């Protein structure tokens, strides 16, 4: 065995942390056996970790002023995001005279979503049994018939009955080729849209929307949410510029189920 000169602090630290190849570790260990100075270095490294551990264990709670301003900011963020959606969601629940939706011909191909928003909107129990629900349903079926791909087995009839345990639609994620792009800090990908939809379809409570945020369309940025629409997950795409809200089939994010002004 080749004797080594004194070990460096880094070598001994690596040895202690198990970072060294076996042969090198063996050489340094052999050296430590016969070298008091290097054993002392090893002990010093053990002490360093112990000192850090002792300091780490001593309490350092968040100061009350920091906590107060943090929670104020969180409350404000929660309120702000919800309010931006209350208007849209409320409008979609109460359809008004329709606005043309031709602009969607291009836009619907790419629901570009950015999770700048937070959380979902509970509120507004799904369905509601109101007249507008019935009216929109006939429209949905008219539109959906035109472009919806093969229905997913088990999602059709069952989806008409909210709360039914059978409303567990099998959702096909958007094709990965969907041209998503970002206008904010984070892109929500097709699989997260599908995951949000899946959550909605298996949710037993009155959750109406999930995964909402801002989205970019060719006409500018708008609001986006995955919502329950007639018992099945759908994408709500709201465009403040034209004050148009559109509900898209969640499986494709292309098929327009419903559109309205707000």
């Amino acid at each position, binding site marked *: 065995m080749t004797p080594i000169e004194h070990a460096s*602090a880094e070598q001994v630290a690596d040895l202690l942390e198990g*970072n060294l190849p076996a042969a090198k570790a063996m050489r340094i260990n052999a050296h430590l056996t016969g070298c008091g100075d290097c054993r002392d270095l090893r002990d010093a490294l053990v002490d360093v970790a112990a000192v850090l*551990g*002792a300091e780490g264990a001593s309490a350092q709670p968040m100061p009350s002023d920091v906590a107060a301003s943090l929670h104020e900011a969180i409350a404000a963020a929660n309120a702000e995001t919800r309010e931006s959606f209350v208007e849209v969601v409320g409008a979609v629940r109460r359809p008004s005279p329709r606005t043309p939706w031709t602009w969607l011909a291009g836009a619907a191909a790419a629901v570009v979503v950015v999770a700048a928003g937070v*959380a979902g909107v509970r509120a507004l129990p799904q369905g509601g049994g109101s007249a507008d629900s019935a009216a929109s349903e006939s429209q949905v079926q008219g539109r959906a018939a035109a472009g919806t791909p093969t229905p997913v087995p088990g999602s059709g009839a069952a989806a008409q009955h909210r709360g039914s345990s059978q409303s567990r639609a099998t959702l096909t994620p958007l094709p990965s080729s969907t041209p998503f792009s970002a206008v904010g800090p984070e892109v929500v990908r097709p699989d997260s849209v599908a995951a949000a939809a899946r959550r909605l379809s298996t949710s037993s409570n009155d959750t109406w929307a999930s995964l909402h945020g801002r989205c970019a369309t060719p006409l500018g940025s708008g609001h986006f949410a995955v919502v329950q629409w007639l018992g099945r997950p759908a994408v709500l795409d709201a465009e403040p510029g034209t004050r148009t809200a559109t509900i898209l089939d969640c499986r494709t994010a292309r098929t327009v189920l419903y559109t309205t002004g707000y």
Partner: protein
Amino acid sequence: MSDAPDDAALLQAHIDGDRNAFAVLVRRHQDRLWAVAVRTTGDREEAADALQDALLSACRRAESFRGDAQVSTWLHRIVVNACLDRLRRRRSRLTESLPDEPDRLADLADRAGRDDITEVSERRTDVMAALAQLSEEQRTALVLVDMEGYPVDEAAAIIGCAAGTVKSRCARGRAKLVPLLAQYRRNHHERADVQADGSAQPVGERVPANPPAEPDISARDTGSPQ
């Protein structure tokens, strides 16, 4: 409170629109997140700003939580990233800031520790000043592993690097700290000598959850892969 929801349930409630859930989640972890932030940045104001940025971002991006890690790990990760971002921005702003660091850190440690007994306050000063001499990467690794007691794997998940990288950064950081904490270590040993015979026992008030170094070296290196 008897049937408190777990972190994942709180996050889901937040995603589902519960206005209070996220605040409850934050209250549950805020002291630990604060400790990480203040120890990583070494600055009270930077820590407060980074923490607020990070948690607001987590609040808005709750949907991006994938469920493949603990919620607390995810929160730590966002906070650590925010702290490192701020440190990098500060470094690019102030190229000549090093002379100020020890004073500012001592001041911070003094304020933070004013309710503590003197000994703990002194140690805090020493440790904070010493940590300030490390690279951001080394400091972050040591804060998480040695100070907060995170297992290496979880620290790696928080930082977003390989476990081996965390181990390497910890080793390099500890090596640099040996001379910086030498004075402290002597005090440490004088006290230890009262009860021990001078052999180097780690006599910290707490054994880190993941002891980074054990006196029994031969037992450690048998399993070292590379």
